[in-house]
């Protein structure tokens, strides 16, 4: 791992995530056993102590996510990893993190739900949970890798976004990508851009809800910082009934994400301005799209796609552009329709067709996407 040259490895998605987290500077991990995320905690427990990091297996997901809150305020870059049921348990604290502007990375390796569902099988059912899982007004950031290489890259990016915007970031992956084994190239460490949170100057006193991202002191540095997820002013003093303080602070915390949606939202796109049919996909499902598009083009159908590397904030501009060219958009998802409605909202007059598959973990096949591309395109 410690190398100034590019190195190539054969890794599982969950393992690549851990390698990236450690390179990004993660030095505190707390988690609770859950399939299909366990390899992350297991590898973390091996790697972190070697770099003076702390690994804790906590008593439940509530303790896990709250432990990473404390460690983040103590000055560490922190992460937890879980799956749908654990992610649900963490939602209240994700709201705390958002309101207190606590940087951290939460990996959600999606499995089949609702309820216990199918614990070891792949799904994409947590898209809306990653956006609206906690109560109140907030703006989520969620990234969706579609390869082991991208698991590495987006984990680094998740930490960078968390630090840059002082906010929780969800790495929304799935059982297929997490357990997939592929070749991964880790570039020379000096070529990997690492962002660290902005620290306050000695005379700073305002650490919350500023128009731009506020500097973040650590506890024990002499700033006497009062951290609370109750409505608070810029100095951390509670105002639990004042509408103007609440509006000012909560708007600012949301706007620091919303106003930078173009910086955060990232897509891979292909042929989006000249296609008859467009496909919007993300995560494991997008892996079938390439083959379907190649086949469609061989058959003379101009096809393009937008692949969401960032699911939230929703890359609206790219999808709109695709919708302007294509008369039909296809949205394959391993759920009963979640990103579909976002695409529909952005697509205006274009026809939007969902392809949904749930349960058992079997992926949507290229042929199923191709059949939908061909329908109405003789």
């Amino acid at each position, binding site marked *: 791992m410690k190398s100034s040259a590019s190195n190539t490895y054969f890794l599982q998605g969950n393992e690549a995530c851990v390698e990236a987290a450690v390179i990004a500077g993660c030095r505190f991990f707390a988690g609770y056993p859950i399939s299909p995320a366990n390899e992350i905690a297991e590898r973390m427990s091996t790697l972190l102590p070697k770099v003076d990091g702390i690994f804790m297996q906590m008593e439940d997901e509530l303790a896990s996510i709250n432990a990473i809150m404390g460690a983040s305020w*103590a000055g560490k870059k922190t992460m937890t990893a879980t799956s749908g049921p654990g992610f649900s348990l963490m939602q209240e604290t994700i709201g705390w993190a958002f309101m207190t502007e606590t940087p951290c990375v939460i990996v959600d390796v999606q499995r089949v739900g609702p309820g216990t569902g199918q614990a070891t099988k792949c799904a994409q059912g947590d898209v809306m949970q990653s956006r609206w899982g906690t109560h109140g007004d907030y703006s989520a950031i969620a990234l969706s890798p579609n390869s082991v290489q991208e698991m590495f890259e987006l984990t680094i990016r998740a930490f960078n976004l968390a630090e840059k915007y002082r906010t929780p970031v969800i790495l929304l992956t799935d059982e297929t990508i997490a357990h997939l084994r592929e070749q991964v190239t880790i570039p020379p460490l000096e070529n990997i851009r690492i962002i660290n949170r902005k620290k306050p100057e000695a005379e700073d006193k305002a650490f919350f809800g500023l128009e731009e991202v506020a500097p973040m002191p650590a506890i024990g540095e002499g700033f006497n910082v009062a951290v609370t997820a109750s409505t608070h002013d810029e100095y951390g*003093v509670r105002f639990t009934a004042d509408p103007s303080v609440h509006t000012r602070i909560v708007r600012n915390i949301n706007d620091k994400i919303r106003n930078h949606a173009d910086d955060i939202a990232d897509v891979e796109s292909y042929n989006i301005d000249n296609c008859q049919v467009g496909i919007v996909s993300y995560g494991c499902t997008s892996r079938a799209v390439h083959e379907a598009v190649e086949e469609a083009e061989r058959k003379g159908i101009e096809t393009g796609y937008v692949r969401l590397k960032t699911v939230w904030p929703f890359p609206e501009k790219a999808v709109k552009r695709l919708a302007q060219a294509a008369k039909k958009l296809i949205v394959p998802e391993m759920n009963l329709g979640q990103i579909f409605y976002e695409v529909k909202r952005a697509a205006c007059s274009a026809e939007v067709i969902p392809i949904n598959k749930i349960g058992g973990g079997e992926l949507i096949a290229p042929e199923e996407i191709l059949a939908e591309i061909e329908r109405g395109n003789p």
Partner: protein
Amino acid sequence: MMVEAFSPRKYMRDLKFPFCPGCGLFSVSDAFLRAVHELGYKDLSKFVFCSGIGCSSWVPSPYYIGDSLHTLHGRSIPVATSVKLVRPDLNVVVFGGDGDIVGIGLGHFIHAARRNADVLVIMTNNMIYGMTGGQVAPTTPLRTKTTTTPYGSFEHPIDAARLAAAAGAAYSARWTTAHPNDLRKSIKKAIQTKGFGFIEAVSQCPTAYGRRAGFKDIGEMLKWFKESAIAVEQSKKMSEKELEKRIVVGEFVQRSRPTLVETVYAMIEEAKAGAKQN
């Protein structure tokens, strides 16, 4: 050598506590700050405060001049545990209520004691959910009238101080607000003890508890604490029936065993040494 006189204002922001007149939290805060003063801390820069949700969680946040993490309901202990792991040089103190610590947060409480996490938990036990208006708590004595037990509570209360001791705490003591000196001395001892320290301060809530439970004023509640208090040693000679309406006070455990900070950092050193060998 002149000893500087105690003044709570030295440690507190220029803000007024929001508690009801006669609230026991004034006494608990006073006992804590006096303990800090007597240990020679001129300010709270060597302390970090973690609290959850409930009246008692507001004691440090934002009233104490120091770092405070006001966390979610029941979640102060895991936050405190990680803060201490990252900053073993700081005293990490949790302020919480009975609902926070042994209601919604009970799992974390037991595990922190089991791990011997190096934090001090000061639990003000007012035997009621005070902030939300007086609902029955896991600490409410049997047959007490509350807003959700209009016919009297029908569950047995939890014995938090004994539970902490059984789960592995390094120090556990219970006093009441009618025992301010003992409370202060125990807090001092707990701050100096390595590992998981637990202080249960049985406290009056005249607004949400006393009023419905039939106490005319605060004096009556303090009298109740004084009269029903019985020392740990003495209680050992009494039957369960005899102890039914008593509050057992004193120290339940004081012991030394490896703390979480010690075991985690020892493991890190071993892992690093192993990595060098390879």
